[in-house]
């Protein structure tokens, strides 16, 4: 052992051995010619899903349940962040020049987000990308010195953060109530339902990401009582 710490040598060796096994497994998995089943089926049934972008079909129809819970994960992270203490100190107010630049960038990001949300049904884009752009708009505002990143006070922020998941879950439960089954969209309504869910999700994702960037409970003095 020339190294001062035998672990420093042992771990890379062990990982290399695991890596060799994984490469072998990956190669034999790829050449096993069984990997086509779900792919072909998913592509074939895209027209029935209410969205012509296959990824949106999978995300918001075939595997909508995963997406619902993924929004719950995002919410859990935000609630956890809030429970750990107040937001970090706000950034310094940007200079006048930068500030006017921010005044341009933020509306552009919001418009681009709206566009991505709308186009997501047919082309690359959708709720997550659109929400990320809204979140980026919030981050830009926070970086230029707005302590709330353009977000509302705590009471409304809570509503905004939970809204997307709530709309999603309520649509799922309503469909179960009318006898179709949880998250089973009737084909005629699929397109409208997906767009509704995506709109709510975009707003929530954007607000959650921006609030997560602030990194703590909103400092606003507004009353949080509903």
């Amino acid at each position: 052992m020339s190294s001062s710490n035998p672990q420093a040598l042992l771990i890379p060796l062990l990982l290399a051995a695991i890596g060799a096994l994984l490469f072998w497994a990956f190669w034999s998995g790829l050449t096993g010619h069984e990997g086509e089943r779900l792919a072909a089926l998913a592509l074939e049934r895209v027209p029935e899903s209410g969205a012509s972008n296959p990824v949106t079909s999978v995300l918001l129809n075939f595997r909508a349940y995963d997406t619902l819970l993924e929004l719950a994960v995002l919410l859990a992270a935000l609630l956890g962040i809030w429970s750990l203490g107040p937001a970090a100190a706000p950034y310094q107010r940007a200079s006048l020049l930068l500030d006017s630049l921010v005044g341009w960038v933020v509306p552009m990001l919001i418009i681009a987000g709206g566009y991505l949300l709308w186009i997501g049904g047919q082309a690359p884009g959708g709720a997550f990308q659109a929400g990320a752009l809204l979140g980026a708009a919030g981050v830009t505002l926070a970086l230029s010195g707005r302590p709330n990143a353009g977000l509302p006070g705590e009471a409304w922020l809570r509503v905004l953060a939970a809204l997307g998941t709530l709309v999603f879950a309520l649509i799922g439960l309503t469909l179960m109530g009318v006898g179709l089954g949880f998250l089973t969209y009737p084909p005629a309504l699929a397109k409208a339902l997906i767009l509704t869910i995506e709109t709510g999700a975009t707003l929530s994702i954007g607000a959650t990401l921006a609030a997560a960037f602030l990194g703590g409970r909103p400092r606003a003095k507004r009353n949080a009582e509903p």
Partner: protein
Amino acid sequence: MNPLLLGFDILLSTTLLGLALAALTSREPRRGVILFIAFGLLLALVWARLRAPDLALAEAAIGAGLAGALMLSAARRAARRR
């Protein structure tokens, strides 16, 4: 077999690998995070080449952009403490 495309693929993969290694071995927080963001952006480019434009958008905006911004503000604090 298209040798030009293959060369492009190998070039992209080795650059990605280099960025990953640099980000993982950097001892300086801000440098490490910036390398990580560069890694994420290049990864988005690779995914666009692999016909996954949805993912390229998401990775650039969320994986590199937002996660990067989050870690940068943490790195700023870590650097200030040192």
